[in-house]
């Protein structure tokens, strides 16, 4: 057990707990941030993706100790931003959402990608999404959604 601080969705938080716990469990159980999903628990599916200092990570394979003093952003925090609005509308318009279980992770992956590279090629988009599994869409319309977001979000990234 240890007391640690980190920034979570733009707020400083303090928590006293076992530092070996998975970030995923801390976010879901202690902070009720259930937009972060568990699909595999072993770093393969990306359903649990969050931003750690603006870069995508899988929270299921990140021990809490790794976020000390850092900035964590989940879909709940990201959904308050303008970039989110743009990505959201693009996903809705393109038909990139089916069961929705992979979707928050896909949104985080999109943000992480565009933050690094605002004008990715189709190939770069696919690489950017390749850590996130979707069983419903076949990815075609998700790739379209990201392209749509790039178009609509000109200047945002």
């Amino acid at each position, binding site marked *: 057990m240890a007391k640690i601080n980190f920034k979570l969705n733009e707020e400083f938080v303090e928590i006293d707990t076992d530092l070996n716990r998975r970030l995923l469990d801390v976010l879901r159980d202690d902070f009720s941030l259930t937009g972060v999903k568990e699909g*595999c628990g072993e770093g393969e599916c990306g359903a649990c993706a969050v931003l750690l200092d603006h870069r995508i990570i899988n929270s299921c394979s990140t021990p809490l100790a790794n976020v000390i003093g850092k900035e964590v952003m989940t879909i709940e925090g990201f959904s308050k931003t303008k970039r989110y609005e743009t990505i959201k509308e693009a996903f809705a318009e393109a038909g990139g959402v*089916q069961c929705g279980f992979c979707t928050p992770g896909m949104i985080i992956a999109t943000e992480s990608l565009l933050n690094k590279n605002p004008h990715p090629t189709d190939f770069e988009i696919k690489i950017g999404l390749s850590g996130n599994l979707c069983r419903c869409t076949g990815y075609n319309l998700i790739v379209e959604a990201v392209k749509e977001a790039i178009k609509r979000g000109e200047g945002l990234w």
Partner: protein
Amino acid sequence: MKDISQSINKVDNDEKISGKAKYVADIKMEGMLHALTLRATIAKGEIVEIIYPKLPEGYFVVDYKDIPGKNIVKVIFDDMPIFTTGKITYLHEPIALLIGPDKFLVNELLKQVKVTYKEEKPLFDWVDSVIHYEFKKGEGFKPKKGDIIIEKSYETSYQEQLYIETQGMIGYMEDNEKITLVGSIQCPYYVKNALVQALDVEDKLVRVIQATVGGAFGGKEEFPSLIACQLAVAVKKIKKPIRLIYEREEDILSTTKRHPSKTTLKALMRNDKIISLAVKVGLDGGANIGLSGVVLSRALIASSGAYTIDNLDVQGDVFRTNTVPNGAFRGFGAPQMMFAIEMFVDHVAKKIGKDPFKFRVEHLAKQGDYTSTMGLYRDPILLEDMINKAMEVSDYKTKRKLFDQKDSYKGIGMSIFFHGCGFTGSGEKNHIKAKVKLKKQGDSVEILIAAVDMGQGVKTSFRKLVAHILDIEIERVIFNNPDTDYVSDSGPTVASRTMMIVGGIVARCAKEMKERFSEENFIVEKVYEQPSYIEFDEATFTGDAYPAYSWGVNVVEVEVDPVTYQVKLHKTWSVYDVGKAIDERMVYGQADGGLAQGLAYGYLEVMNHKDGKIMQKNMTDYIIPTAMDMPPMETYLFDNPYAYGPYGAKGVGELSLVGGAPAVAKAIEQAIKRQVYKIPVTPEYIMELVNNGKD
């Protein structure tokens, strides 16, 4: 008014994209306990003794002795126990639940349980036939002396649904007597009926509510009834909310999958045509029969594919083995059969020296032909136009020629297929008997049906349908997740039946409501009426097996790496006849997603068992496509309205999966200049073919 097919944004986009949608694992309840499953560690035998560790206060074991009713999960064929009474028939068969407030402690306790077994020799060979069906069309298979007969065999392996949300459920007690289950399910009333039998209680003492479903694909058709029964028994005993969520490994190792199959086809040739076909299908059912008989029926009925062959001799068996039970998966027997028949017609053509494409077109089913079961293709069949469209957009002919060159490792393949919409035969009329309610309350209209939105967009398409008929804004139409305390039993969300069958009844309700719309509050209730011309004899497999058929053509272009034999998909082109799209973009979504699963079934997804143990136990071992694997997919829809579907809609959900495997397998055949007889066509199999196979 706008055309119904014009797309709208899905009604649940916002909650899903923002992460606010509540899946079952997101629901917290005061004092909720956690359950984990104790499972068998052998494939066959008897339990001699179970020694549980001393359980701390507030921790429980729940097993078969706690079941008030029948120890059987009610599905189609009732042979799956809720908990074993001691007999073990497959590895990981459930023995008991361990339950308590701290999940980690429950897990520790689980590890300390000692089970001793008397082991028996498990059966893995396909010899114990538990279901056998056969039927004939025309004169069956009667070769004369001197006739040419061509025979080939095809194999398909397991496929795992791999919904990204694992199986899960929460159970709790209301008012000290009523047991309520909230879960990730496709069929609320399947679960409810199973609970009534397991608990032996009145109907009204059980309630089932659907949580947001994170993908299902058939995997949440019958399997959730098992967890529901286990949990309900536990809730009855402990009287506290309990949650049971599977981890990925447990989900893969212990839940139902697509049946592995072996199919032998024999063609009797005259004048370069197949005049008779003998079909023999074997399915590995696993340790329980469950839905396997229905899966077999669908496979057998599809045995002549999208072609008309006047004489058939069709036989099939479900074999029981000591392996994890197989069950529903999008396509339901059709993907196995479509792979076999689609490969076979090409192989036959090659054997007799005819152009496979021409050979197939000569055999295509046409309106007015008899189906495999002597039903009638009553409605127009647009296959020729669809094929032409697919060839034009994919530049099929040119590429086919180009890739035939010796040093080309590219290939283009085309599959032609159908999917029967709705339950097989008289299933709708005799077994399901769908009921639908539409309720007007003041300004709004509520759809009260048991159809589950598992991503395919039922909530959107049904609200749109009703709004369109009533000519009101979609916001005034309400559709909540089904809760059996409120909704009618409109049947399970399976078999590509939801829009065509349930939507058809909803549309009839809406039309009546429209006439009385000035009335303030009222309910319109209707049941399914089978078109009078549909007759099917289940015992003899004769008559119209389906009320309608959806049709499809897939073209796939691939390239095979000459060194590693890795297959790369370049592009796909698909043409579908689903009657009428209730929302085009949603149909495109189903088209892409189904095709991705079908293609991956054909070349990527490897699953097998060794001594009853599934060898791929997580997402690292069981590979499904990532965004990098999937090529751009183009889809075209042909309108061909079906008289009894709403606005002419037929089935969509499964169609797009069934043609994927043969299309990619044929493309690979061309790329490697070898004939393919089994899927998935892995690099290892390609190597074997390149070394030993024939063109």
